[in-house]
Structure formats: structure tokens, C-alpha cells
């Protein structure tokens, strides 16, 4: 064999080893990247909670307007709710106000507010300069639409009452004025009048020009609609996380939504599952390992159990829906969900418990029999104590499997509507994975962030469970 050929023979092996190592690394790296991006995505929760904490609920609206011949949509962010006695309310913000600028950044989408809070320089406590346009009532008072004579279907917008001290009065507007346009946006309706002013303010940096008709004369008035102030917000990561896990779900405003109902739902469902599946699973494992003779029946049982463990969970969901929710009359409740989950977990629990029992060597049993112990005495006093750490490990691992299960429970949970804490086993419920599913499919901004945050919470719980299982295994594992 030539030297070159021999070298190739050697390097081929090294190359192969390298490729094998790289593919293992690739799998791990991809998963790591996915986890890190989720972590980064959930960071925005801090800013979202900061605005929520200050008392704001944000919502995106848009004005459809025609400038010249073009139809365009102008988005703006409105305060859908302002919590009473909050810092925002004390600053003078009211429900229906439009946010124009936060920390110098123009706001045309909800997430821009959170970005601004996130990027504003400063530490934990932040005095955030904001600019807003007060709601229509405060800004312009009462408006009414008047039909224009001889042009059916067209209206003009007239100021009917003007609150004293309002920005409109200060700008020189009077009762009876007809609003025509704000900058280049023409005013065509009572609600749209305020929106046009908001959009014009948003697009111009200073005061805007308002065109009004008074006594058949057209006037041009400079108008400052926007007000300014400093809102105190706190960017506190741990507090944001705590607020997130301890508050109830809020289907409209992601900055207020929390995981409490889902966490409690998960606890209840998994509790029911454990009560049903653990005794049954351990009993079945004991029968198969310690009692059953090697017969055809045992053989069939083994094949069945191994294959039940591989049935897709959504199939168990159908069974749960039909047998438990409908035939047994449990409805889509915690009880039905927990028992259905137990069907899925049972074969896995049996396999894990059998594995643990199998690690106890046969001479332990033989020693017990030789001093006259019955089978149950042997199992109870000699086999079980040694197998128990392994069985516990199996329990914890199946628990973590059950906590992450979504496909089965999606058929039995009422995940869209649960905004309360379930108190009764007959209540409908949601669990953490379902809440993630629900949030991940919502198109509005902010829900991706809380879905990512919920994933971190879920993975945190699973990590703790798995670490406990591994620690148990290492601590109590018998070496024979």
C-alpha cells in the first residue's frame, strides 16, 4: 500500500470523527440558539410591565384618511385604560388620550412605546418624558355633525360646547366654529376630527395649523394639541417576572396579561393525573416484574404497554373528550383533563417503574424468600425500598412530561376564556403550554413577548424537576 493511500485511510477516519462531532454539536447549538433567542425575546416583558405598572393599557388604532387623491391609514396609539390612582392618572393622562412621543421617539405602534422605555438611558427608576394629545372631550369639547344644505350625505363638524380652559379654547376656537382641516388632513366626522388632530400633531413636531370656518370666513389658527409631562416608570426585571406569574390572564392587553390561571391550572391537572397514574403505574409495574409468570398474557401486556407509550397524545385527547367529557359527563374540566392525561402518562410510568424494579438484583428477593418471607413481604420490605429512588425519579420525569403536554389538553381545556383562578375540579381550565399556544397565535404586538416569557417559566419549572430527578438518581442510586 502506497504512503498516500495509507494517509488517506487515516485521515478519512479523522474526517468522519469530525463530521460526527460536528453533527452532535450542531443539534445542541441549534437548540441553544433557540433558547437564547426566546430569552432575549422575553426581555421586553420588563418594559411592558413598566408601562402597565404606571397604569397604562395601550391599544393601536388607525385613521383612514385621504390626502389629495390618496387613501392612507395613519396608525396611532391610544390609552385604552388608565388605572385609577396610578402615576399616569396623577400626571393627567386619561382614558382615550393618544400617545404622541415617548422619550423623544414618535409612537405609531404599541411596541414603539416599550422600545422607548427599554432604550431610554438611565437605571431602574426612570423619568420618562412623554407627549400626548388629550381625548376628544377634553381637547375639543362636544362636537356635532351638521348636514350641509344642498349636498346630501355630507356633514360638517361644528363645536357645540367648549369646556373653559381646554386647549381648543386657548387656541382661540369658539362655539359654533366649523372644523375644516388639521394641517393637510381634512376633517369629515366628529370622531375623525380629533383623530386628524392627533395624526397632524404626530407628524408635525410643533403646533399644527387648524382651518376653521366662522361666520362664513375661513380662519387659520395655530393649535397646540399636545401636552407634555414626565412619567415615572420602573424597569425592574424581577418585579416584572413576579407580576407576570402572579397576575391573571388579560386577553386584550399583553402588558397586563399573566400566567397565574395557567400555573394553577397546570398544578391542578397534574395533581389529578398523579393521583390516578402513579398508584396504577407502580402497581402494574410490580405485577409485571414481581408477580407475573412468563405467559402469553404477560407478553401481550408488555407489547400493549410499550405501544401505548407511543400513541400520539392527541389520540388520548379524543378519548378524553368522548369518554370523560361527554359520556361520563365531566365536561371540559380539570377532572377530565387530569384523567385523560393519566391515560397518556400511565404507560410511561409503568415503563419507568419497571426499569427501577429491574435494577434490584434477584438475590435480594432470594434472600428474603429463604427466611420464609411471602411474596408481598419480600416486595414490600426488600424490593421496594431499594427501587424507591428509581421510582421517584420516574415519577418526577413523568410529571415534567405531563406539565409540558399541550396536544391532549387542547381538546379538553377552554384555554381562550380562562381569566380566573380555577377553584373546583369541575371548573374549566388552562395550562401553561396551552397559554403559550394561545399567545403565540395572537397577531397583536406584545403577545410574542409574553409567550416567550411563559416559555421561560415553563422551561424553568421543567429544569428544576429534571435537576431534582437527576440529583435523586445520583444520590440514591445503589451500586450492586
Amino acid at each position: 500500500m502506497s504512503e498516500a493511500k495509507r494517509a488517506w485511510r487515516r485521515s478519512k477516519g479523522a474526517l468522519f470523527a469530525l463530521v460526527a462531532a460536528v453533527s452532535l454539536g450542531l443539534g445542541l447549538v441549534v437548540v441553544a440558539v433557540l433558547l437564547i433567542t426566546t430569552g432575549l425575546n422575553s426581555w421586553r416583558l420588563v418594559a411592558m410591565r413598566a408601562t402597565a405598572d404606571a397604569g397604562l393599557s395601550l391599544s393601536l388604532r388607525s385613521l383612514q384618511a385621504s390626502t389629495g387623491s390618496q387613501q392612507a391609514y395613519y396608525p396611532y396609539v391610544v390609552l385604552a385604560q388608565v388605572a385609577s390612582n396610578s402615576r399616569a392618572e396623577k400626571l393627567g393622562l386619561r382614558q382615550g388620550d393618544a400617545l404622541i412621543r415617548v422619550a423623544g421617539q414618535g409612537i405609531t405602534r404599541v411596541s414603539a412605546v416599550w422600545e422607548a422605555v427599554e432604550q431610554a438611558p438611565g437605571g431602574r427608576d426612570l423619568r420618562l418624558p412623554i407627549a400626548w394629545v388629550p381625548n376628544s372631550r377634553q381637547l375639543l369639547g362636544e362636537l356635532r355633525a351638521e348636514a350641509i344644505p344642498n349636498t346630501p350625505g355630507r356633514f360638517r363638524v361644528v363645536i357645540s360646547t367648549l369646556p373653559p380652559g381646554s386647549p381648543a379654547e386657548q387656541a382661540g376656537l369658539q362655539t359654533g366654529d366649523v372644523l375644516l382641516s388639521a394641517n393637510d388632513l381634512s376633517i369629515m366626522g366628529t370622531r375623525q376630527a380629533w383623530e386628524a388632530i392627533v395624526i397632524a400633531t404626530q407628524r408635525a413636531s410643533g403646533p399644527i395649523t387648524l382651518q376653521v370656518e366662522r361666520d362664513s370666513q375661513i380662519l387659520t389658527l395655530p393649535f397646540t394639541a399636545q401636552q407634555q409631562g414626565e412619567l415615572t416608570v420602573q424597569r425592574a426585571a424581577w418585579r416584572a417576572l413576579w407580576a407576570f406569574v402572579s397576575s391573571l390572564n388579560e386577553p386584550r392587553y399583553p402588558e397586563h396579561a399573566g400566567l397565574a390561571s395557567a400555573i394553577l391550572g397546570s398544578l391542578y391537572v397534574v395533581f389529578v393525573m398523579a393521583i390516578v397514574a402513579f398508584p396504577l403505574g407502580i402497581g402494574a409495574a410490580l405485577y409485571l416484574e414481581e408477580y407475573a409468570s412468563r405467559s402469553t398474557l404477560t407478553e401481550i401486556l408488555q407489547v400493549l404497554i410499550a405501544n401505548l407509550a407511543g400513541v400520539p397524545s392527541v389520540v388520548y385527547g379524543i378519548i378524553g373528550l368522548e369518554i370523560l367529557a361527554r359520556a361520563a359527563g365531566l365536561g371540559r374540566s380539570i377532572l377530565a383533563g387530569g384523567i385523560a392525561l393519566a391515560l397518556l402518562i400511565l404507560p410511561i410510568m409503568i415503563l419507568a417503574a419497571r426499569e427501577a424494579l429491574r435494577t434490584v438484583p434477584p438475590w435480594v428477593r432470594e434472600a428474603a424468600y429463604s427466611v420464609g418471607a411471602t411474596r408481598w413481604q419480600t416486595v414490600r420490605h426488600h424490593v421496594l425500598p431499594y427501587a424507591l429512588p428509581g421510582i421517584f425519579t420516574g415519577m418526577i420525569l413523568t410529571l415534567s412530561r405531563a406539565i409540558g403536554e399541550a396536544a391532549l389538553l387542547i381538546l379538553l381545556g377552554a384555554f381562550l376564556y380562562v381569566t380566573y383562578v380555577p377553584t373546583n375540579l369541575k371548573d374549566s381550565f388552562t395550562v401553561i403550554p396551552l397559554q403559550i399556544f394561545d399567545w403565540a397565535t395572537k397577531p397583536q404586538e406584545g403577545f410574542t413577548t409574553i409567550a416567550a416569557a411563559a416559555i421561560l417559566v415553563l422551561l424553568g419549572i421543567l429544569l428544576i424537576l429534571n435537576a431534582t430527578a437527576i440529583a435523586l438518581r445520583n444520590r440514591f442510586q445503589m451500586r450492586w
Partner: protein
Amino acid sequence: MKVPRHGPRGRYVKEGLIRGLLFACGSAAVVITLVTVGTFILGSLPFFQKVSLWEFLTSIRWAPLTIPQSYGVLALMADTLVITAIALIVALPLGILSAVFLSEYASERTRRTLKPLLEILAGIPTVVYGFFALRFITPLLQGIFPEIGFWNGLSAGLVMGFMILPLVASLSEDVLYAVPRSLREGAYALGATKFEVVTRVVIPAAFSGIGAAFILAMSRAIGETMIVALAAGRTPAWPPDPTQPMMALTTTIVNIATGDHEATAFIWSALFAIGLLLFVMTLLLNVASYFIVRRFRERYE
């Protein structure tokens, strides 16, 4: 005669009771299987009275709610299989190579650290992978191929590949590791290099076990629900095009079950028909894999 509490007869009664109780636990698996099969057959009877099995399996259009109704699962099956194929294309080479590295090249210490890590990775909930697919992989793919839809089979398949990767790697590693030392040593004695031992002796010897891992991974991918429900969309694609929204069998189940239907509606029986199909498909694959693994074990243990 009074039976003494700790005497032999009381003991036998107690032993018998316990034995019976444990047997009852053990037969729960049989009960579950019977109930499952029974529910599916009874539940899908009304369906197959109206729709013939042939039409169910060969018709392309799945439209249970629009008139004229049509209940063909061919497109759904095709979509499911295309997504599964993408997942396997990702998971098989990577998984088997990872297994070869762990079993043949890695030091015992590396192996003992990485093997539990694989188990932990296999325990990441699938809804998490679904979120990854929808929010990170799809935008990434859209950056490369702009014509890809917001929902598409490709991103679901790729992510599913990484989801089943730990399963493939772990199972293949088990069988590779179980190949007896004597086989390797025999090959080394004949002057083979490590590469030759691995590729010509160890992998062929473990081939049936790796095949079983392949089948199990396939069954897992077919039954996977959350990834496809989140990322693949809810419109069946025919012909199956992974850049377009696809609807898998499992998504169809979720769709029907979460829809707002009357309890007596005919669509519920379609749920059982699809469930039965899924159950049969995965059961066949699982049984096949089970027996392949057992034969492998018998040969070498």
C-alpha cells in the same frame, strides 16, 4: 373456626388480595387499549356509513364545513408525510452521526455528560418548538426565500427534525453501544482502522436497531401536534408544497375539536375517523419498531 390474624390462612388471603389488586393495575393497559379501539370504531361507524372508506382515503378535498362537503384525507396525509419527511431528513443523519460520535469516539466522561443532556432536550415541550418555528424559523426562511408563507410546512418540518433529533440520537446510541466488544475486537485483529470498524462492523451490526429508531421517530413525527398546529397552518395543500400552508392530520383533529360544533354534528364522527387513521398508522409503526428492537436485543444479549 376463627382465623388467626397472623396465621398462615390470613396471610394467604392477604397475599391473594394484593396479587389481585396488582393484576388489576396491570390489566389497566388492556382496558385502555380496548376502550380506545372500541371508542374509535364505534365513534367512526356513523362516518363510514355515509362516507366510504375508499372515498375517505383517496379523495383529495377535505371540506367538512363547506357545501358540498367532502371528506378526503389524501391531501392531509400527503401534507403530514411531507412534513415528516423533512423532519427525518434533518434528524436522521444528524442523529445517527451524533450517536456514532457518542458511542464510538467520545470519552466515557463526555458520553456520561451528554447522554442525560439529550434526555433533557427530549423533554422540551413541543409547544416550545412550535413557537420557535412560528416566530424565529419562519421569519428566517422568509429572509432567504421571500415567497414562503407565514404558515408553511418547511419550517414546521425543520423544527420537528430538531425536536426528534435527541430521540434518534439516544435510541441509536443505545443500540450502537450494545454492539458486543468482541465484534469490534475481531475487526481490529484483522487490521481494520477505527473508521472501518465503525462503518463496516458496528453500524451494520446495529442496523436493525437504527431502523427501529427511524420508525419510532417517524411515528413520533406523524403524531406530533403542537408544531404543525402552530407553524404549518390550517389549509391543506395539494399538491403538497412545503413553502405553502399545510394541514396535518393532527391539526385537523385540533381544528375539529376546538371548533364550535353541535354535540350531534356529523363532523364529530369525522374526528373519530381521522383519530382512528392516526392511531392505526402510529400503532403499526410502533409495533414494527418494538419487534425489531427485541430481535436486535435477542441477537446480541
